């Protein structure tokens, strides 16, 4: 190595070093900048009294909880919404309630229940679902449903409040990744 080569090598090396010192944190800044992932198991949230649900009529209920939005943390915010369907008739003693996530597994839009209807429709790409969340072909055109999986059913239990004697619907709210044909926890 002659003197000239050495100086070339030193110049390029120093320039690369400076660029790396700026560049590496630059990459890390974007990688690490994501807010904290919610840790631990999701909890059951108490949503509504069973008697306030009309059998066969889906009802959208917000799930309240703590919401972390980048640098803002707020309590008692709607962290998600669930569709509750009470399946038994009002007279019957056995009360089953089905809880479906309102997030469409396709692109993450909010699934709607047209008034009076017993099925669900996602307004984004007009996908239909049955009352149990199963994908249905387009009722108008018969076109097959392009959503990768059925609506996500959430763990749901009925809890009796001994003080008041009311039966409450409790749901373990979770978010699942969209666009996949199987469920993966995560937004």
């Amino acid at each position, binding site marked *: 190595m002659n003197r000239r080569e050495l100086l070339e090598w030193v110049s390029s090396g120093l320039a690369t070093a400076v660029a790396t010192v700026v560049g590496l944190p630059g990459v890390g800044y974007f990688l690490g900048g994501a807010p904290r*992932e919610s840790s631990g198991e999701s909890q059951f949230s108490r949503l509504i009294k069973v008697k306030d649900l009309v059998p066969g009529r889906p009802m959208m209920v917000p799930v309240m909880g703590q919401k972390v939005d980048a640098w803002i943390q707020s309590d008692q915010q709607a962290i998600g919404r669930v569709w509750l369907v009470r399946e038994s008739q009002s007279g019957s003693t056995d009360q089953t309630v089905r809880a479906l996530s309102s997030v469409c597994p396709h692109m993450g839009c*909010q699934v709607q229940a047209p008034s009076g209807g017993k099925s669900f429709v996602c*307004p984004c*790409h007009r996908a239909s679902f049955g009352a149990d969340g199963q994908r249905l072909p387009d009722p108008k055109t018969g076109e097959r449903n*392009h959503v*990768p999986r059925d609506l996500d059913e959430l763990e749901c239990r009925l809890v009796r409040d001994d003080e008041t004697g009311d039966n409450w619907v409790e749901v373990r709210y979770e978010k699942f990744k969209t*666009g*996949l044909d199987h469920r993966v926890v995560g937004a």
Partner: protein
Amino acid sequence: MQSWVDWLDLRLDYRLIRNRISNRILPNGPGWVYTSASCLLWLLVIQCITGLLLMATYCPSMTSAWASVHFIDQSSAGRFLRGIHHYASHAMIILFGVHVLRVLCTGAYRAPRELVWITGLLLFPLMIVWTVTGNPLSVSQKGIAQIQVEGNILGSTPVFGPFLRRLLFGGEEIGSLTLTRLYFLHVGLLPVLVGGLCFIHLQQVIKHSPFRSPDDIEPTSTPELLTYWPYQSVRNMISLAVIFGIISIFAWKDGAPLYAPADPNLAFSPRPEWYFRWLFELRRYFSGNTEFIATMVIPSAFLFGFMAAPFVDRIRSHWLAVACRLLIVVACLGGWSWLTMISFLQDGQDAEYLAETAEFDKLSARALELATTVPMTDKGAIELLRQDPQTQGPRLFARHCLSCHSHSGPKTPGLVAAEPSAPNLYGIGSVDWITGFLVSERIASGEYFGRTKFREGDMVQHIQGLFADDGKDDAAVKTQKIHAMAVALAVEAQTEDGDSPDAATGRELIMSGGGCTDCHRFHDQGALGTAPDLTGYVSSLWLKQMISKPSVEQFYGERNDRMPDFASDPGHPELNLLSSRELDLLIQWLREP
């Protein structure tokens, strides 16, 4: 003067640069087909200037963005500038398409101009991302719903998708960081990338153009040898003036749209902008895990296919080459138009979608109206519609009341219960609505008690008894008395003035002749426990207490039919069906729909 200019030229060499630019000679001489490039460049400059001006007022925060955009629109100059920025972005996409097709038609990508072509094509997706990151900046429901879907499309790309989505959203979900990221892309990263590519693009264009020495004599006899300045420039400026004129008219007349503020409680059917409609339609032919073929693979294949053109196009025969290029142009244009048209036609035939869009336009108009009449709080524009009884009333009613009660009348014809089983609440508190309880045909009808368990109750029988022909009063007098009682109750509801003679007569009748206080309490007459309290009847406070817990002594007690307690537990507001604020909104709307 001359010496100054010379001094400057000696240092900057600007004459040489100007000469290379303005004395260029175009392949077939100046022509209108070459104007698309220049128009794009000048529109880009206009976008940068208007964008920079908007940045002086816009605030990239989830709570303030909508309000700051609305603030910009409050001055006619701001509204005009934002309008230019909006419509020029659409014009640029059209022009970009025209420009690419023009270059393709004339085969101008051939050696040595490969880099002009490639940098130009790379600018296209950047331009699209530029507009896509601009649309949600106002934090409108439409913009946020669009970026939500666009982010999820990005996220469903195999391998890198989820990572890129997290980069774009600044986390797993849309939030404050998302807006900052979009802003960073829109006003920071993309201008730098586009600027850099534009520099290479223009440097290559100029480098590969022949130019004339300034000392040459003007070749008036051969138009092909006319210089860029002013023979091409004048055409460019005429085209630009026409395009910018159209943009200005739109900007001045309509301004840029500002849709209702984003609110996760609002349902919305997002549709992409017109230039993405073909992808929206194409997506329908794929499903689930293969959708990225439509949204990513096909567009990328087009882009790289086009980029390869200079290296693939080795066809010697001039006419064959022209025919091939024309075929590609026609196929692309045709496919694009076909898919776009199908998508719009399908939405145009979808009654539900049209109704929803109309509803959303009404919401947007209402938000704009509220923004100028109601003070904007530090919680931001989201509260405008959330605190508006006119907007929230029908929603709360449809969600909580419509399973039993209708609210059908001239102003809300659509709020009809599928199986009404309780009184129609339209006009609650008005003299006419109250009169209905005092007229035997009306109280027994489905509009009042006809479908409740009170259908044959004491109240209905009492009213029917009052109407029985007992020979005391004739019909006209009875109607008069009923009217007076209804007025007196409307005074309780605070919808009528208490000083009228009717009200005084009515109060008298309620307490004595009408027999009401046999069951109802009315001020200091009668007792609770047998029928709802008539003191303050259907006033805001009465309604709030009644809806909160109808099964108390003051209202229906144990005789309550099926009405649920909507806010029975003041200690745990989160477990109530309706919050205090929701009750206020619902009641305010019920009383003044």
